[in-house]
């Protein structure tokens, strides 16, 4: 695989490109549709396509994680929140905020920074993904040996967010 160039794409590259296209296109639909629930459903398509990208890169475990957490929990919670508050059928006029230009600028800037970073770091590196799919045990080894400090820091952060959420809902009750 190492002698392969960017100009001779394989079938896997093509599938990856198609999935990426689906992800980007549906992400555009998320921000441009005039129906709020449709935006959430397009988000499902977009996140699902990203999971497909992981799968093509043989990161099976990460792909299932993406499905379980983003499709199964995050989007469902989003839709739940919308249905509890306001989710009319048909287009709503007030979905586009006044600071859309600022948002566009932030999105473009973030894309530029990440793009430059990725190209600069891995621009000409060929990573061989044709081997065994990365199993959960490989993932666990990496996570709990090399990355155990960030992992623990993240869990403390999540715990404090949890406690914060409980504290917020408590003070609401007393008021």
């Amino acid at each position: 695989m190492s002698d392969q160039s960017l100009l001779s794409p394989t079938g896997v590259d093509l599938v990856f490109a198609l999935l990426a296209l689906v992800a980007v296109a549906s992400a555009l639909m998320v921000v441009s549709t005039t129906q709020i629930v449709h935006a959430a459903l397009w988000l499902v398509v977009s996140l699902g396509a990203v999971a497909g990208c992981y799968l093509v890169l043989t990161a099976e475990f990460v792909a299932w994680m993406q499905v379980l957490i983003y499709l199964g929990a995050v989007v469902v919670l989003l839709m739940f929140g919308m249905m509890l508050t306001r989710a009319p059928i048909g287009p709503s006029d007030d979905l586009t905020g006044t600071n859309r230009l600022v948002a566009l600028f932030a999105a473009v800037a973030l894309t530029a920074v990440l793009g430059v970073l990725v190209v600069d770091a891995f621009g000409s590196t060929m990573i061989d993904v044709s081997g065994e799919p990365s199993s959960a045990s490989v993932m666990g080894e990496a996570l709990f040996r090399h990355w155990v400090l960030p992992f623990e820091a993240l869990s403390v952060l999540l715990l404090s967010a949890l406690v914060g959420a409980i504290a917020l809902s408590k003070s609401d009750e007393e008021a």
Partner: protein
Amino acid sequence: MGELLEAAFRLVIVFAAFLTLPLLVGQLEHKVMAHMQSRMGPMYAGGFHGWAQLVADGVKFAQKEEVVPAAADRTVFRLAPALALIPYFVAMVAIPVGPGLVGRDIDAGVFFVLAVMGVGVIGTLMAGWASANKYSLLGAVRQVSQLMAYELPFVLAAASVAMAAGSLGFTDIVDAWEPWWLIWQLPAAVVFFVAGLAELNRPPFDMPVADAEIIFGPYTEYTGLRFALFLLAEYAGIVLLCLLTSVLFLGGWHGPFVDSWVWTFAKAGVLAFVVIWLRVSYPRLRADQLQKLAWQILIPVALAQLLLTGVVTVAW
């Protein structure tokens, strides 16, 4: 080419099982419920003890008119049944019923099945929202709040047995399984089964489709084939839950005399009977009882089991 053919063949077999096993469970439910209530159940369709009743039901559903409410969001309304049903088929592909008898062996199989099963609820949400009916919407909201509470113990219980076996693959778990796990992993097994029932909206956890309160919840506006697809999804869910429980906790194809796929199906069949039994025996849980059961009983039990499994696995 040969590999591709084999994969296609396996998918066809799984698809056939996906279409027939739910019907078997449905017929079993008709007959078992009837006999528990001193009735006969279906007796005429097909001749022998009404064996073709569900085939007749299917024909009836296919003949019915497809009605979409005027105020509904047509596209989402039509897509919803497919999104509710397909995840169960995809999940079933990864479950082995015997040594080598599996649609597609996946490395992190347990994880895959749990992840895919969680997607099905989006179909219910879509149905509830797109129907433009307040009962449908209420049903969908109830469904999600119930699912959020029961997903956690469901996954934790499965994690316990995966930890005990040291693997996320079904085949490895069944290979590592020994009879004394029946006692050691019993709390996890009970939590898994109960939480699974709640995820499937089976009585006594059928508040989202409570007919006396909100007609039929998210499925109120559905007719004909699309309604039949939702029903099929429910029974496919029962098949899936029973197969999962028997493979994860009851040793799958291990059994006295000889290891065979027959044992997997026998165990799953007994579990399906229990599912029906519970439906006939228990009244529906209220919203507060539902949440209490999940957060104050099932989750602590699952966490304690996880702790016990961790200690035993490390100390062994």
